[in-house]
C-alpha cells in the first residue's frame, strides 16, 4: 500500500472486527518519528495470539488463510527503523478491562517511509461504515492538532441522527479539512 492513511484504515478495521465500541486513533509527529497508536476496547487477544501476530500465516478470519494487515504494518515500521508493539488483554481473562493497544513507530523522514495520504478519507470511511462506534482521532504535530471525537458530535446530534448521514459526513469532511488547512499554513 502506497499511502500511510490506508494502513491506518486497515489496522483500525481490526479493532472494529474485534467488536470494540471505543477506538482511539492517534498520530503523533515528534522530531524524526511518527508514532501511530490504536487503542480499542474490543475482545482482545491471548498472549500466544499476540506473539503469533507478526506471522503472516496467522489469522482468525475464515475467508482466507493469511492475515496481511499487521505484517504489512510491521514491515513498514521496521523498514523505516521503527518498531511495532502490541499489548492486549483478552476478554476471557480480563472481563472488565479488555482491549488492545497497538503502537507503531516510524522514521518519519526515512527514505522508505511513504506519503501520509488522505487521512480525512480514512476517518470518513470509518465513520460511514461504523457510525455507532466512538472513534476519537488526534493528529498531533508541532504545528497544531487535528482532533475529532464522535462522542462529542453525537452529544450535539442526539440519538436519532446517524453520523453516517451524508449531511453529517460532509460536515465532518469540512471540519477536518479546515483543521488540516490550519496546521498546514503554519
Amino acid at each position, binding site marked *: 500500500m502506497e499511502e500511510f492513511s490506508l494502513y491506518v*484504515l486497515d489496522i483500525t478495521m481490526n479493532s472494529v472486527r474485534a467488536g470494540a465500541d471505543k477506538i482511539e486513533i492517534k498520530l503523533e509527529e515528534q522530531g524524526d518519528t511518527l508514532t501511530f497508536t490504536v487503542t480499542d476496547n474490543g475482545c482482545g487477544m491471548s498472549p500466544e495470539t499476540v506473539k503469533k501476530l507478526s506471522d503472516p500465516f496467522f489469522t482468525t478470519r475464515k*475467508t482466507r488463510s493469511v*492475515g496481511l494487515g499487521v505484517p*504489512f504494518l510491521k514491515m513498514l515500521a521496521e523498514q523505516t527503523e521503527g518498531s511495532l508493539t502490541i499489548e492486549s488483554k483478552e476478554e476471557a481473562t480480563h472481563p472488565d478491562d479488555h482491549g488492545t493497544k497497538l503502537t507503531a513507530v516510524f522514521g518519519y523522514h526515512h527514505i522508505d517511509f511513504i506519503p501520509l495520504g488522505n487521512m480525512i*478519507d*480514512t476517518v470518513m*470511511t470509518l465513520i*460511514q461504515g461504523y457510525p455507532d462506534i466512538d472513534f476519537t482521532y488526534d493528529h498531533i504535530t508541532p504545528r497544531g492538532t487535528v482532533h475529532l471525537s464522535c462522542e462529542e458530535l453525537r452529544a450535539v446530534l442526539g440519538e*436519532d441522527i446517524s453520523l453516517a448521514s451524508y449531511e453529517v459526513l460532509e*460536515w465532518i469532511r469540512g471540519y477536518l479539512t479546515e483543521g488540516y488547512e490550519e496546521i498546514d499554513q503554519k
Partner: protein
Amino acid sequence: MKSLEELMAIRDKMQDKVAVRHASDDIRVVVGMATCGIAAGARPVLNAFVEGVANEGLAERVTVTQTGCIGICQYEPIVEVYEKDKEKVTYVKMTAEKAKEVIERHLKGGKPITEYTIGKVIS
C-alpha cells in the same frame, strides 16, 4: 472554522426527516474493506458510492455498507449489490469511475452492468 452551531443546524433540519428515513432500504451496496480490498483501492470506490448515492438523490432507496473479506482477494475491490427479490450482483476489480457508471446504469437505471460482474471477468 466549521462550528458546532452548523452541526446543530444540520440536526434541526434533519430531525423532521428522520421518521421517513428508514422507510425502505430496497437496495444494499456492500463494499469489501479487508486488507486485500483496501490495498486494491476499495476506499475511493466506497467514497464514490457514498457520494454518488447522496448526490443522485438515491439515499431513500439505497444504503451503502462495508464488509470484511469476501474471499476472492485477487478480484478486489469487490462490490455486491443486493436487491429485494433479485439475484445478488457481484462487481469485481472496481474503480471510482466504474462505481459512477454502476450508480447511473444499475442503481438508477435498473440494469446491472454485466461487463463488470464476476461471471464476466472470470470466464
